[in-house]
């Protein structure tokens, strides 16, 4: 099924932020906003919740710590105990560096893989942007058009009075 969108094009981040506030206040649902760089304050006006990725990173890190400790204690303490430099078999101070490194390794890679999965980022040949200028210097506000429900003229007017330099329509094949 094809989806239709109305795209409001902006060229200033502050105008965009006010426009988002006003468009949402007018009761219009914003499908997505695209920008060439992270616009600060956009999360609040769009109502995007704080990402839970730090929590994921914490648990991946915790896994790394436990795995590293288990691995070293089991290998040198139980599987093949050896006396090295007169130290006890389970010489915990010696295990700190590897434990730390594996904690960082698991936390970083675990979080990044989660980020790729939840944001649906993967290598592909498709060019999925709505308006190619949104990766250069324009900010694009996309609003989904529902046949029979959306008043295009009113929407156009709303976007333009809020500073859009262009209002375009776009159909996306699903």
């Amino acid at each position, binding site marked *: 099924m094809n989806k239709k969108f109305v795209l409001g094009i902006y060229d*200033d981040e502050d*105008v965009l932020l006010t426009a988002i506030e006003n468009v949402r206040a007018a009761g219009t649902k914003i499908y997505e906003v*695209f920008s*060439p760089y992270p*616009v600060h304050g956009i999360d609040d006006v769009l109502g995007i919740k704080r990402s839970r990725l730090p929590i994921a990173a914490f648990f991946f890190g915790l896994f790394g710590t436990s795995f590293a400790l288990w691995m070293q204690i089991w290998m040198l303490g139980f*599987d093949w105990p050896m006396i090295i430099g007169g130290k006890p078999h389970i010489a915990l101070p010696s295990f700190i560096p590897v434990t*730390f490194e594996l904690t960082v390794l698991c936390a970083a890679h675990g979080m990044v893989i989660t980020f790729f999965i*939840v944001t649906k980022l*993967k290598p592909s040949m498709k060019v999925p942007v709505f308006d190619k200028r949104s*990766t250069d210097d324009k900010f694009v506000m996309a609003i989904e058009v529902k046949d029979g429900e959306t008043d295009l003229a009113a929407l156009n007017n709303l976007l333009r009075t809020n500073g859009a330099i262009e209002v375009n329509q776009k159909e996306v094949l699903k």
Partner: protein
Amino acid sequence: MQHVSPIREPLVTGGKTYHDITEDVCRQVEAKPNMRWAIALAVALVGFAIFCYSVYRTLWYGIGEWGLNKTVGWAWDITNFVWWVGIGHAGTLISAILLLFRQKWRTSINRAAEAMTIFAVICAAMFPVLHMGRPWMALWVLPLPNTYGSLWVNFNSPLLWDVFAISTYFSVSLVFWYIGLIPDFATIRDRATGPIARRAYAFLSFGWTGSAKAWSRYETVSLILAGLATPLVLSVHTIVSFDFATSVIPGWHTTIFPPYFVAGAIFSGFAMVLTLMIITRKVFKLEDYITLEHIESMNKVIILTGSIVGVAYITEFFIAWYSQVEYEQYAFINRATGPYWWAYWSMMTCNVITPQLFWFRSIRRSLTATFIITIFVNIGMWFERFVIIVTSLHRDYLPSSWAMFSPTSIDIGVYVGTIGLFFTLFLLFAKFFPVINMAEVKAILKSSSEVKPHHQHHSNTMHGTAKDSNSNTSHSNE
């Protein structure tokens, strides 16, 4: 609300707009390679060829091709390893620690500095792997099950900690760098005209669209990665210094080593970043993005870390005398007055005296002076590693085993070769990847550029002027 002082120098000069940034950074990615780049690559490839030949000799005839002997069992290779790893540290410092400190000036240099980190770690890793003699056995450093028991690796050994530290550091730096590259690859993809370029950059950009949700997560991921990379980078050179500090060799067995090595690493790394940046900004005409303000900020880091290193040298001498340990005292007297006195005094001159010139503002802001001093620092830091390693080993407890070390042509070939490898990788990066993080520079443009982008015609159609006039600063990034 964020206050930007009016006396603060702009970080982006020339009154650039968002589109100008895209144009300026993408220009050399999209243009045909120019002559200067091709000549530079040819020179780097000669270095790479020397590397290949020296590695072939090392592997075919064995470690005997190197100048090591029974007394000096670690010399040229480990010197180069520590030197390269140290250089890498500046990239992570710029991208991670300066991000946590909210230093906006990092945005235009972090991309190239991180690339330098990755290439420097690749060069560093060559040395311990080659010193194994049989690099195809390198997987034995990992705790893998085997048919000898399983006989596990020794987790009490700093050399094993190094394996974990360097591989974690490399892979986390690579991921951090790549995450930053994704939005910029998307920019290049959306501008690309040729079918190969479009497909290649589409593949590399992972289907990035720049949606608000994705940016929100991107920023979270960058912040957490910076938080993870900061202790990581400090741990890496700490663990490298443990290779020496946990042994009982006079001159190595000191508790000062971890902070001393980390400061030295940042010192040499910033010198290398400056060397590369002064060339890059000139060749790719990026003077409006890498300004004298950036050069001066980096020079300030050099003078700080250089002074820490200087204090550490003096502290080592004092502690050797104060400890009343005869061997320790001899190790230091021998460094300064023994057969390797020239290496010691080269180190002192290059590392302690030359960076002090940066106290003068005119020298801090002079490109020529900075370039020359950074070369001195790079040489000085190489000698520091050489002095620590070779002078401590060559005269140990037993005078009957005293010996001298001199490198063979293969030793020199591997070292010069890694410089060729480094520049080959860096030049390829500079041609095909955006050398400046476009998205992050655009994000600081409004607050840190000479001229604020004007959109007067919009503010007229909008409501109240009060909100508009202060939103210029209130929404400014970082």
